[in-house]
């Protein structure tokens, strides 16, 4: 009885504290994820205040947090959107993989963490935070901008890449051979394709199985199905998160919209626990040794992600300002980098320092991302302005000159 009371007080304190932090975060215009991580770092392992007795709950809750994060990601996009997204942005998507997975992998290898950790770090630096990006675009009123479809289809591509990547990582973490890894790649590709086909052709049957006009029944079925699929997927070594993600894709139409509405608060709750637990399990004293690497990664991957966005926007024929906005918008990393790192450090094959590096990296990127998206316009205008003046002084390119007069007349 007494221990229950203490657990309740601890949990209540954690939630209330997170609420305060979350409010603070959006007020200063950044995502709350870094603050949740800091909250987790402050407690637990090597922190100021050890939390005891609530681990059984927080462990399973953070697992549910990951499942819900991925389920809602799957729900967000319909199968047809995924297919068109893939068709529209596969070139930019491949550039994205090459540019942004490489820095993480290289740093992990430099640190001597081995190929498995390098695969994990590749994912950490590759995957943008669709949560942060969508929120920032909405807040800045940029949903109608022409770069927004470009950004969103790139995010769609990244999410599909995740669906293939996570099973591979899971297999590698389980310590399978190279051949086993290849098999995992094959199986996950087949499964993803299969689910896409099912979702496109028979999505309404899957939805009908889950759907109910009664909100309570709907919630229970939805959550039940998600945990069942995730559990079975995990048992089959395909990664629980991917199971949930694929279920999310298979649910379509109005069922998906309703499911998102019902699950969003739950996801926010459990995902917050997940971030805190990740912070809890990260030893703050492990951060200083990797700080320099985290900073290097932050600078490098800000540039590589910006280059990706710039390239994608340029391919769609956007103007320089649109290209700049697309470049800055994509920079944020967040929830899914932590999901990948969480998966990785749960395996003994990967050093615990990886979580310290990822925590620091995400702390930086979740702040740099929104700040970059907000400040890109004045900065880029200055740049276009200066180029314009240079062109005006000596240039004779008619089109550039036209751009120049336009931007000059505006500033």
């Amino acid at each position: 009885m007494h221990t229950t009371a203490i657990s309740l007080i601890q949990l209540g304190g954690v939630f209330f504290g997170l609420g305060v932090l979350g409010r603070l975060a959006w007020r200063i215009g950044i995502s709350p994820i870094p603050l949740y991580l800091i909250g987790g770092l402050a407690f637990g392992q090597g922190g100021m205040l050890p939390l005891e007795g609530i681990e059984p709950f927080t462990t399973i809750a953070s697992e549910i947090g990951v499942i819900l994060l991925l389920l809602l990601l799957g729900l967000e996009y319909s199968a047809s959107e995924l297919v068109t997204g893939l068709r529209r942005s596969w070139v930019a998507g491949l550039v994205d993989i090459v540019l942004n997975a490489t820095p993480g992998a290289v740093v992990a290898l430099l640190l001597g963490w081995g190929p498995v950790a390098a695969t994990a770090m590749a994912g950490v630096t590759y995957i943008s935070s669709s949560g942060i990006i969508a929120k920032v675009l909405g807040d800045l009123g940029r949903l109608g901008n022409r770069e927004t479809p470009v950004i969103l289809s790139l995010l769609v591509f990244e999410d599909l890449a995740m669906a293939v990547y996570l099973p591979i990582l899971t297999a590698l973490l389980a310590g399978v051979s190279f051949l086993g890894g290849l098999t995992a790649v094959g199986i996950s590709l087949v499964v993803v394709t299969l689910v896409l086909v099912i979702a496109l052709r028979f999505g309404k049957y899957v939805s009908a199985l889950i759907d109910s006009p009664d909100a309570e029944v709907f919630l229970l079925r939805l959550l039940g199905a998600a945990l069942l699929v995730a559990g079975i997927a995990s048992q089959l070594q395909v990664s629980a998160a991917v199971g949930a993600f694929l279920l999310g894709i298979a649910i379509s139409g109005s069922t998906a919209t309703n499911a998102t509405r019902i699950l969003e608060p739950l996801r926010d709750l459990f995902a917050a626990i997940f971030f805190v637990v990740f912070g809890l399990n990260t030893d703050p004293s492990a951060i200083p040794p990797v700080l320099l690497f985290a900073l290097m990664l932050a600078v490098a991957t800000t540039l590589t992600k910006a280059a990706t966005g710039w390239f994608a926007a340029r391919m769609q024929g956007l103007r320089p300002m649109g290209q700049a906005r697309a470049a800055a918008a994509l920079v944020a990393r967040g929830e899914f980098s932590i999901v990948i790192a969480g998966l990785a450090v749960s395996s003994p094959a990967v050093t615990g320092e990886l979580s310290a590096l990822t925590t620091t990296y995400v702390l930086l990127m979740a702040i740099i991302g929104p700040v970059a998206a907000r400040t890109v316009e004045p900065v880029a205008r200055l740049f276009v302005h200066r180029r314009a003046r240079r062109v005006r002084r000596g240039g004779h390119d008619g089109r550039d000159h036209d751009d120049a007069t336009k931007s000059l007349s505006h500033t």
Partner: protein
Amino acid sequence: MTPLPGLGTQQDFITASGHRVGVITYRDGRLELIVSAGEDPDKVAASVGLTGEETSALANLLGAPQLVSQLTKQQREVTGITTWQLPVAAGSPYDGRSLGETEMRTRTSVSIVAVVRGGTAHPSPGPDFEFAGGDLVVVVGTADGLRAAGEVLDKG
């Protein structure tokens, strides 16, 4: 039509003045009118969320004058005949009553050629066509008749 994965779809066009004008249709059915800045058509200068009623009001405002000017053009040869658009205000005596009840033809000798509702023209409405607040009634007749028709719709 451009898909906005996770949000909905967007349809837009560039005007002769260089603005991009369009509508975002969100998944849950909400509509948003977007108008781009002049110097950077890629960027949205204003996005206005519209309710169903507001959408049809806007569509009427844009659609009815178009119809009227078309009809006016066609009737240019017939002197003394004009086309007007008259609103059925919410709370007008005919809001919710049928076209036949106005006895428009008998009382003012003008003809109702169309009713624009929600941006869609309903041509040649029959006597049992029911008016609703916000409708725009397109009428053809003499100037005096049209003035009278406006009063009928206003005051009954």
